[in-house]
């Protein structure tokens, strides 16, 4: 059979004439292995993880965040000082063996306060992302899956909320409710879930008409099973990316609000309050009071942003090679 095709092509294609037949080498092709897949079978997540690992900047961000998480947990216990512990004798000490990051104008240890601030920032960021996730997935999922009139009404509401200027609403809420960790998270999530809902809805709308969902339906799967087993796992990529990018937004918002005096109140520390307190140090030259909170806000946001970008590339099946 093979022999015959080669012969036939030789006759038809004049270019073949110039190549002597000795140059051809017969390759042994084992017919029985033709269907086997040589590339190891990888699940979506394994593949994404492999691709993420190749992205050095994103991995750097991930490692930084893990270290930050560890330090936020144990950091405040590494020193003998407490967050609000005022020692007026130690005002504005530069970094030294006793105070690794120096002290502020009330003699509080900046090292302790920085890691305490990391707790607040990470807590606010992660809580905001989780709440946005829960509300957004349920709302967007229902809206996209039901479609039609339900979808129309639900999306009108989202559009109105989307048009609200985010930080202004947050400021208004905090002024009325009074600043506390709880109200900050409430204020951030009250309009924050809208972005997630839009993404989930768009994804579900696309997926629900694909064949595998129809197949599942025709096997008699219940709606809850279709949503849980067919739709959600396939939207997880964009959802995770959105969550990673929500965290720096929330961290920025918390720092911004604390900077305006609406955030975490003294004696507790957040990076925003520390930066706000340190504003006066521009002229006095106590650089460490501004440097450490400012550095960690920026570095954390940077880490989340590059990790989000990396995940976006890693979780996009179109970029799979």
């Amino acid at each position, binding site marked *: 059979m093979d022999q015959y095709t080669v012969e036939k092509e030789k006759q038809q294609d004049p270019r073949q004439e110039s190549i002597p037949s000795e140059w051809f080498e017969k390759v042994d092709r084992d017919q029985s292995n033709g269907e086997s897949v040589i590339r190891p079978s990888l699940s979506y997540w394994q593949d994404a993880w492999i691709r993420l690992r190749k992205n050095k900047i994103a991995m750097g961000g991930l490692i930084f965040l893990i270290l930050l998480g560890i330090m936020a947990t144990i950091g405040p216990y590494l020193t003998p000082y407490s967050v609000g512990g005022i020692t007026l004798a130690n005002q504005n000490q530069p970094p030294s063996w006793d105070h690794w990051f120096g002290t502020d104008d009330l003699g509080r240890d900046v090292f302790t306060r920085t890691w305490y601030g990391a707790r607040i920032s990470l807590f606010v960021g992660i809580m905001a992302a989780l709440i946005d996730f829960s509300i957004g997935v349920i709302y967007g999922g229902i809206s996209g899956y039901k479609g039609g009139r339900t979808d*129309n009404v639900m999306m009108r509401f989202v559009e109105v909320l989307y048009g*609200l200027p985010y930080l*202004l609403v947050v400021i208004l*809420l905090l002024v009325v409710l009074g600043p506390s960790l709880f109200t900050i998270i409430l204020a951030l999530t009250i309009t924050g879930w809208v972005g997630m809902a839009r993404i989930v809805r768009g994804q579900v709308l696309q997926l629900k008409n694909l064949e595998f969902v129809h197949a599942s339906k025709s096997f008699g799967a219940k709606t809850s099973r279709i949503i849980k087993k067919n739709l959600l796992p396939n939207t997880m990529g964009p959802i995770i990316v959105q969550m990673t990018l929500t965290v720096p937004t929330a961290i920025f918002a918390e720092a911004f609000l604390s*900077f*305006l*005096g609406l955030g975490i109140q003294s004696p507790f520390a957040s990076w925003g309050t520390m930066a706000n307190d340190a504003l006066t140090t521009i002229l006095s030259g106590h650089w460490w009071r*501004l440097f450490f909170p400012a550095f960690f806000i920026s570095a954390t*946001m940077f880490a989340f942003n590059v990790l989000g970008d990396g995940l976006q590339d890693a979780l996009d099946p179109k970029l799979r090679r």
Partner: protein
Amino acid sequence: MLKYTIKRFLLMIMTIWIIATLTFVLMNAIPGSPFNEERTSNEAVQANLEAHFNLDQSPLVQYAGYLKSIATFDYGPSIKKPNDSVNDLLSRGFPISAELGIISVTVALLSGVVLGVIAALRHNGIIDYLAMTIAVLGISIPNFVLATLLIQQLSVNAGVLPVATWSSPMHMILPTIALATGPMAIIARLTRSSMLEVLTQDYIKMARAKGLSPMTIIVKHALKNALMPVVTIMGTILAGVLTGTFVIEKIFAIPGMGQYFVESINQRDYPVIMGTTVFYSAFLVVILFIVDITYGFLDPRVKIHKEEGN
């Protein structure tokens, strides 16, 4: 197109109404009254407030009066400043804030687009990586951190530029940089990615094949289309710049609306907070409306997409 414009217009009115109502509800939700004697400074102010907000009437009458005052741009007196109304503060502060905002947005737009285009043309080259590193850094460093850093380095240490206020073009440089860097970074990233996408399109190959000069192709054929996503996010960018003016004006002691707003937050001057929030929200919502409508006119494809029910 007309149908879409009307739909968007109604949505805009509704959004402003929701903001106004939310503000009213929150104002009434404050325990006791925000306008009791403890908070106000004197008798005259108290009388002004009661007259303006109809405090002796039922909530419904108050609400009607409140909506009317918003529609007529009359935001009532300030608690802490007996001689000023919120309108006085707005007319004094808003032009300065608007100036800062417009300069910053212009700078951000121009530099962001240029940076994005250069990065896209040198895709995966050193300039691309450099530009994108600058962009991610710009997104990651909060404007108030950048502002203090700039003052510390350029004003206090080097003494090149003035520390604060808004009195001459030299004074405007630092606040503008501090405010424009974040939006610039966002615009640069967006321009780059949409430019990269546009450059692979067939009509660009066609233009090349016709022998048009690279400059013409980039500016006339590619950039025009690549800028569409940038137009879409202009609303968000403006909102960011606007809230950014609050902290920037605080740091640089610029006598704009942002500074009055921050001051009113710290002093719990409720009418000023409420008035400014409603004014700024309405302002932003109107801008968002204009951006959306412009977008519809610029991009003929929008008509079809929007009518599919989005």
